[in-house]
């Protein structure tokens, strides 16, 4: 059995969730037994946005207690770590990026775990690859070539990433250019100022415009949670982005002072659940930046499973935006396989 990396539908081996539903043919996930379609957006519902209430201390308390409430050990841990890898967007977004760096990253994306470790773990059949490679527009072509035939997607950051403050026309043109260049996924940034000013219509229009420019490319909307700061802002921005048609909502650019945290993620994931329950449409989630350890990846996967369910632990609805994380997971897998922790240099770098 090879893992299906095509992100347009859920893996058919997902425990029979879709087995007996009449609407299953278009469903990309189920929530509490109900099939969900991919997000086509809805008209802006201001009432919904204004009704949002988030209790800061309770959210933080739940996020903190959750990491102690769930743990996975042994073969289950190994399986969860592999799942984390399959949900990873390997990312390079530095000013000094070059084609060669991107090619190396893509090579790592195709073969995230070295062959001998794959053999010891006995997981050749899984054909583990990462979810996507995430780069600036300039490197789309290089990445596409390097990943050809692998099933790993190419995601391009766009719309004046990371600040997102170029003129709208430029940002839209940027998306179009990346889509024409062949990017499968586009990561856009919202204008945080619209959230601070409560200009929900403007935010909605902006995201809807981006979505239109994306066409069939899958759109992740970066909220910039490290800038938005309050959980209430994050929740409201989440709803507006989803209503405007986001395929995924993403925490942060990775360039903010604080990026993805469990409490912020909990708020966004609850918003996704609420949206799914109200509209019957599924939106994915991507925490980006600040996730460095294997243990953290387990914590996030547990949260996705608890709050939304197993469909949201697959690459079509969940991604980690990370770079260093893979290395820590490799060391953890090595320990599982051999009983010993390896030095970093024992695993090939990207």
């Amino acid at each position, binding site marked *: 059995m090879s893992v299906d990396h095509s992100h347009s539908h859920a893996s058919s081996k997902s425990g029979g969730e879709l087995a007996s539903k009449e609407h299953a043919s278009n469903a990309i996930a189920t929530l509490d037994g109900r099939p969900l379609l991919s997000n086509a957006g809805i008209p802006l519902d201001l009432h919904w946005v204004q009704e949002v209430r988030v209790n800061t201390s*309770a959210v933080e308390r739940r996020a903190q207690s959750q990491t102690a409430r769930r743990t996975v050990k042994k073969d289950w841990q190994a399986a969860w770590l592999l*799942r984390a890898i399959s949900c990873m967007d390997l990312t390079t977004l530095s000013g000094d990026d070059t084609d060669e760096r991107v090619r190396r990253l893509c090579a790592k994306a195709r073969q995230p775990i070295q062959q001998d470790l794959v053999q010891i773990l006995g997981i050749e059949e899984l054909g583990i690859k990462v979810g996507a490679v995430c780069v600036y527009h300039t490197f789309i072509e290089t990445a596409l070539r390097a990943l050809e035939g692998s099933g790993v997607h190419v995601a391009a950051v766009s719309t004046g990433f990371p600040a997102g403050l170029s003129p709208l026309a430029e940002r839209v043109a940027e998306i179009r250019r990346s889509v024409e260049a062949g990017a499968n996924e586009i990561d856009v940034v919202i204008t945080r100022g619209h959230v601070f000013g409560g200009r929900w219509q403007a935010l909605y229009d902006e995201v809807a415009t981006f979505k239109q420019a994306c066409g069939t490319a899958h759109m992740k909307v970066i909220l910039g949670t490290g800038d938005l700061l309050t959980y209430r802002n994050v929740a409201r921005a989440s709803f507006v982005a989803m209503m405007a048609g986001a395929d995924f909502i993403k925490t942060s650019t990775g360039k903010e002072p604080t990026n993805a945290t469990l409490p912020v993620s909990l708020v966004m994931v609850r918003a996704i659940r609420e949206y799914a329950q109200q509209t019957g449409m599924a939106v994915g989630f991507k925490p980006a930046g600040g996730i460095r350890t294997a243990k953290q990846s387990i914590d996030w996967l547990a949260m996705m499973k608890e709050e939304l369910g197993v469909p949201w632990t697959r690459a079509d609805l969940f991604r980690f935006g990370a770079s260093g994380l893979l290395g820590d997971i490799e060391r953890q897998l090595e320990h599982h396989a051999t009983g010993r922790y390896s030095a970093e240099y024992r695993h090939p770098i990207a």
Partner: protein
Amino acid sequence: MSIAENFVSMEYGPAPEDSKEAESWLQRHGRRFGLFIGGTWQAPAAGRYFDSFDPSNGERLAEVAQGSAADVDAAVRAARAASAPWRALTPHARARYLYALARLVQKHSRLLAVLETMDNGKPIRESRDIDIPLVARHFYYHAGWAQLLEQEFPGYEPCGVVGQIIPWNFPLLMLAWKIAPALATGNTVVLKPAEFTPLTALVFAELCQEAGLPAGVVNIVTGDGSTGEALVKHPDVDKIAFTGSTEVGRAIRSATASSHKRLSLELGGKSPFIIFEDADLDSAVEGLVDGIWFNQGQVCCAGSRLLMQESIAETLISKIRDRMSKLRVGAPLDKAIDIGAIVARVQLDRIERMVAQGVAEGATCWQPQVALPSRGFYYPPTILTNVHPTSIVAQQEIFGPVLAAMTFRTPKEAVELANNTVYGLASCVWSEGINVALHGRATQGRRGVGELHKYVRRSLRLWRIPGERLRSRRRSRGLGRIYGTRVVQARSETACS
């Protein structure tokens, strides 16, 4: 299951805590324990023992001594003999013993946590992360009080010999709540652990020996209700401290009414959990999980009565059911379990009976589809709706993972329903509106501990300024204080009272 299969299913799989250390401690003692009196282990005078069981699988853990009146007498005499020298120590010297006990609890924390789980049935996560750390903190805290006693409470004298009877829901923590302040204020102690859960008290006795605590300062006499009765009636006990059911508390109050004995009672509750329409519902639901499904609902201050504003009731119930479906019920020694075993058959029977009666009276019972282990005493998380104030499930403490839910329409009605109970232990209010929230808290003033946006489990915070967090005893949940300044006062005679 292979890694490949787990990869697809994303099951949690088992995550068992290792019980080897606890098993070998039990084995070292030949699974038979005597009484800890006058600093040594003694066989029970009448030679009788009773069994302590692991409720997760019904297996016998050990034989424990049945303390008779003669044993209680010996313990009280040992406590009396130790009393004068103990109170003659400097406060600093007493503080050092308490500090040593705190350190020893931390040193042996894993053994204590695992044994607590095996004896009580609570999830290892709770005993490891909540019970045992709080025990240690409680001893540290009272080490501080011991040190400060003379300057903060000049003229106070200890009661003398204190008889303490504790319940099974937080065995070692209840022991800490009793023993730490008593010792800090210069008292000596005879403590009777609950019949269902004596084991961690017996480890504690060994820690007393390891700390070099003078003989007779702490005496542990295991036994059933008759042992407790002997302690309550013993003429040379100066004070009785009891935590347990309201019925037994009442009996103790009658029994001690005409005696000189001071009394503190921490009894039952049927605490309201109030959710207004402007609350963050998802967060309130998490608060509810802590409020009623923590420790299988076997908590005196459990938020067992949900009062929800009518306008959000349907949405809230739906969220609660979804959340309940995610609660994992199973082997308490599994680190990823939310709900463990009920402490004993008799408690399980009581829960089943009361739920059945509630349903017979018109309540609707909902439980998630969850596979319960075939052995042991388990009860699924339960919510009862269509509950009226007259219903038994709204009036009486169930002491299980059962939530009784009612609606209200106005804040005034919420307060009225909340206060319509013979108990008055705890409560909490959820609302994002500051006016509603503070009004709710203020009018709940006849309640012991009123909380905003969190459940009282967290009120066991001992680093606050003494006296700031009181658990006052009013109505049927007892007399006296559990911690803070007042508890120090309660353990001592005042010059003028």
